[in-house]
C-alpha cells in the first residue's frame, strides 16, 4: 500500500490511541492533589531518620538504592554495547590524523568552559545530600567538562586524556564499587545496600552515612560511561572524515 494510505491509517489509529489514553488519565487524581502516603511519609522522615536534607537523593541512594543499582548497570551495558558496535574504527586508522584547532576563541573558550564545568561538576557531586545534585547529574556534568576539552585541544591530544583504556576501568570501578558497597553491608550483618556508617550531622557535607560512598561510586560510573560513549563517537567521527580509504 502507498505511503499516504499507510500514514492516514496510522493517523486515525493514533488518534484513537490518544483518546483512549486521555480517557485513562482523566481518572487520575486531579493535578495538584497528590494523594499517596509514600511521598508525604518520606518527606516527614528524611531529616530525623537519615539526616539528609535532599529527599530526592535520599530516595535515589538510600530508600531505593536497589533500583539505582539496576539503572547504573543498564548504563554500563549500553556503553559496553556501543563500544562493541563501534570498535571497527581501529586505533591505527586514527593514529596519524592531525586536526589542529584553528580559532583562538574556540581554544580559549573551550578551556574556560572545561575548567568551570569541572568545578561545577565536582560541586554538584559533593553536595548531593544538601542541595539539588547527586551522582547522576554530577557525572554527566563531569563528562561534559571533558567534552569541552575536546573543543579546546585537537583530537590526538584529547584521545590520550580520554582514552578508552582509562575511562573503561573508571566506569567499571564505579559500577563494581556500588555492588561491593552493598555486599559490604551484607557481610556486616545488615541488609543488602543498607547504611553501615555513622549518619553524620544534618546539613553538613558528611551527612548521610554510606550513601555518600554510593553517590561517589555512581558519579564515577556515570562519568566513565558517558566518556566511553563520547570517545567512541568522536573517534568514529574523526576516522570517517580522514581515515583510511577502505570502502565497504
Amino acid at each position, binding site marked *: 500500500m502507498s505511503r499516504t494510505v499507510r500514514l492516514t491509517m496510522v493517523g486515525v489509529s493514533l488518534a484513537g490511541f490518544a483518546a483512549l489514553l486521555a480517557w485513562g*488519565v482523566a481518572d487520575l487524581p486531579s493535578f495538584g492533589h497528590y494523594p499517596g502516603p509514600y511521598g508525604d511519609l518520606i518527606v516527614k522522615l528524611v531529616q530525623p531518620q537519615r539526616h539528609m536534607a535532599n529527599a530526592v537523593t535520599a*530516595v535515589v541512594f538510600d530508600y531505593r538504592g536497589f533500583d539505582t543499582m539496576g539503572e547504573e548497570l543498564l548504563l554500563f551495558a549500553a556503553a559496553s554495547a556501543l563500544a562493541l558496535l563501534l570498535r571497527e574504527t581501529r586505533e591505527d586508522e586514527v593514529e596519524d590524523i592531525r586536526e589542529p584547532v584553528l580559532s583562538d576563541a574556540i581554544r580559549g573558550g573551550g578551556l574556560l568552559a572545561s575548567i568551570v564545568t569541572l568545578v561545577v561538576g565536582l560541586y554538584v557531586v559533593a553536595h548531593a545530600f544538601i542541595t539539588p545534585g547527586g551522582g547522576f547529574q554530577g557525572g554527566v556534568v563531569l563528562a561534559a567538562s571533558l567534552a569541552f576539552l575536546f573543543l579546546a585541544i585537537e583530537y590526538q591530544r584529547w584521545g590520550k586524556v580520554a582514552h578508552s583504556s582509562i575511562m573503561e576501568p573508571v566506569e567499571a570501578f564505579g559500577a563494581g564499587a556500588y555492588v561491593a558497597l552493598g555486599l559490604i553491608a551484607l557481610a556486616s550483618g545488615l541488609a543488602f545496600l543498607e547504611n553501615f556508617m555513622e549518619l553524620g550531622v544534618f546539613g553538613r557535607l558528611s551527612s548521610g552515612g554510606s550513601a555518600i560512598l554510593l553517590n561517589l561510586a555512581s558519579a564515577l560510573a556515570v562519568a566513565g560511561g558517558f566518556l566511553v560513549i563520547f570517545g567512541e563517537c568522536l573517534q568514529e567521527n574523526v576516522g570517517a572524515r580522514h581515515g583510511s580509504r577502505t570502502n565497504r
Partner: protein
Amino acid sequence: MSILPYLLAVWLVAIGLYGIVSSRNLIHLAVCVSVCQSGTYVLLLAIGYKDRGTAPIFSDVPASRRAVDPVVQALTLTDIVVAVAISALLLSLALKAFDHHGSLDPAEMADLKG
C-alpha cells in the same frame, strides 16, 4: 484544565509515535523515540505535584512545609540519564545499518521487509 499536564504527556507520546512511523531517516527516528520517552517523564512529575508545594529539599526550609513527592523525581532523574546512553546505542545501530545498506531510509532496507 487540571488534566492539562497529563494531556501534554499523552500528546508527546502520540506525536512521538507518529514521528517514528512516518520517519524517512533512521536518525530522525531515534530523536522521535526520545520525544516519546520524555512524555513519560512529564506524566511522572505531574502525578507527584502538590498545589503550593515546594521542592523536597529541606536545607533552609522547615520540614513542616508542604513538599511535592520525591519518589517520582528520583525515578525520573535516573531515567533521563540512562535514556541518553540507550539513544546513543540506537544511533550507533543506525550507523551500522547505514554502512550495510548505503542509505538511512528505512523503506530502502529491503532485507528488513516481511
